[in-house]
């Protein structure tokens, strides 16, 4: 890795801004005053030991927590730029948030529908009915997810008939089809073999040319390979945020250093 060669712009554009975010599962305080920036067209990795709140933070971004009773966002917020909307504000419709920010889950979760319908779904919920436009955009999304070559001849087959890695790329295509501003990935390769993992990593590296990426990963090599920024969390707190190369080479905090050198976690 050419750590010293990749120049990072001095002032990257801010896409989202997490400010003093507190989150509760019932009475359990899962996120404590979390603050971090998310830069536009960059990949930001969330790392930290299991249970530290990475998924919890990620799922705040698309208001997934709203689906379950007892979950509370409290204080602070996530401000989305350029329009300066606080995603967690009461007046903001979670549906609108999810239309702007899409998500890829840990375990591939294709719908039991055809490959075409899986990708087209995120367009259909947006009211798109025109067949030729659907065709075009599904194709573009599948190409964007590097899956088109493998499935172009069998779009009407079931999504579940694909291999695990292909299913995950199908889910990425589904997340891409709606032209989101930000894509959330929650350990997208943890259920995949090394080859499928490599192809997804390559894909994410390509995607960040066009779209902002926030990715949770357990794998520090993966964070180092694909992300521009990395945030280290521990017990619901944001310990350190920084440019990936710097954070891995010269962490500012002792805790971060212990974690990335494997002395802990």
């Amino acid at each position, binding site marked *: 890795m050419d750590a010293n060669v990749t120049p990072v712009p001095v002032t990257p554009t801010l896409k989202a801004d997490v400010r003093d975010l507190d989150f509760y599962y019932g009475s359990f305080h899962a996120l404590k005053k979390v603050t971090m920036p998310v830069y536009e067209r960059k990949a930001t990795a969330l790392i930290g030991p299991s249970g530290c709140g990475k998924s919890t933070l990620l799922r705040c971004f698309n208001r997934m927590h709203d689906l379950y009773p007892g979950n509370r966002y409290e204080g602070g917020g996530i401000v989305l730029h350029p329009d300066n909307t606080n995603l967690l504000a009461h007046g903001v419709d979670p*549906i609108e948030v999810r239309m702007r920010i899409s998500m890829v889950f840990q375990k591939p979760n294709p719908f*039991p529908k055809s490959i075409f319908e899986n990708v087209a*779904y995120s367009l259909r*919920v947006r009211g798109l009915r025109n067949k030729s436009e659907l065709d075009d955009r599904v194709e573009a999304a599948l190409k964007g997810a590097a899956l088109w070559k493998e499935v172009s001849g069998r779009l009407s087959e079931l999504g579940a008939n694909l291999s695990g890695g292909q299913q995950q790329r199908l889910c990425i295509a589904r997340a891409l089809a709606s032209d989101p501003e930000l894509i959330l990935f929650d350990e997208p390769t943890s259920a995949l073999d090394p080859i499928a993992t490599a192809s997804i990593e390559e894909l994410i590296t390509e995607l960040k040319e066009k779209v902002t990426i926030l990715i949770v990963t357990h794998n520090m090599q993966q964070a180092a390979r694909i992300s521009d920024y990395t945030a280290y969390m521990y017990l619901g707190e944001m310990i350190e945020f920084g440019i990936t190369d710097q954070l891995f080479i010269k962490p500012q905090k002792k805790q971060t250093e212990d974690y990335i050198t494997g002395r802990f976690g």
Partner: protein
Amino acid sequence: MNELKSGVSESMELGTLRRIIVRAKRWDLFFVVLGILSLMIGVLTFAVLFADMASKGLPRLNWEFFTSFPSRRAANAGILSAWVGTILVMLVTAVAAIPLGVAAGVYLEEYAPKNWITDVIEINVSNLAGVPSIVYGLLALGLFVYQFGFGQSILSAGLTLALLILPVVIVATREAIRSIPQSVREGSYACGATTWQTVRDHILPYSSPGILTGIIIGMARAIGETAPIITIGALTFIAFLPPQPYVGDPPAGLFDWLFAPFTVMPIQMFNWTSRPEAAFAENAAAAGFVLVFMTLLMNGLAIYLRYRLRKNIKW
């Protein structure tokens, strides 16, 4: 097997080990025998009953049996009014129970807030499934027949049976919905779908095999119900069919048949079995054969539909 021996734990000699396994396996054998016996009791009893009914009734099963009205003379009597009545009542039952039951089930699973009111409703629904059917008959007599003024009609009967199977449909709907993994729901919401879109595009299609099975099992139960239908006043002897829409003079309205008096298969059977003449017992057996056949057909349909619809769904 000599090489294996060295791999066996030394604390237990191989011979002892094998004896222990043989002894432990006796219980397997015991349960297999017990299981087969229990199965046989159920299956054989049904087979004997069915064979007896078939042998008595089959000679009566000819075209005239299906196209004749009941008659004082056993040899002329048929089940025309009964099977037409059964099918029309079932139609009303299905039209009323399916949308209500499915909607209630979907609401409880996907929309209802999780609080004590929902809990009370849930307990009530499960309890309703256990209420004796005659109680539904009494309720319907007061409500549909008199209060709403539907009379002793196909409509009243269909709605009564709909009430009877509503809990079955609700419970089946909820169970089918619960078997859908949460990850699919989250996938849909993450695409920006509303709850209704999620229900329409995912929840209903993926739970339809289970829902359909529940509906058909409920209908198969309803088709044989006699007590509530007698309670609301089905006729036991009827020699005309409900009015066909737009037929007759003056032409009948599209929905006039709903308010017509009627009889159903089990009542026809009941009526014939209560006659002293042996010839009527044969008629009852033949009608019973038809009724069982209708039920089996419905169950077969349920199995087929479940198989067909589940083919696309793997989790």
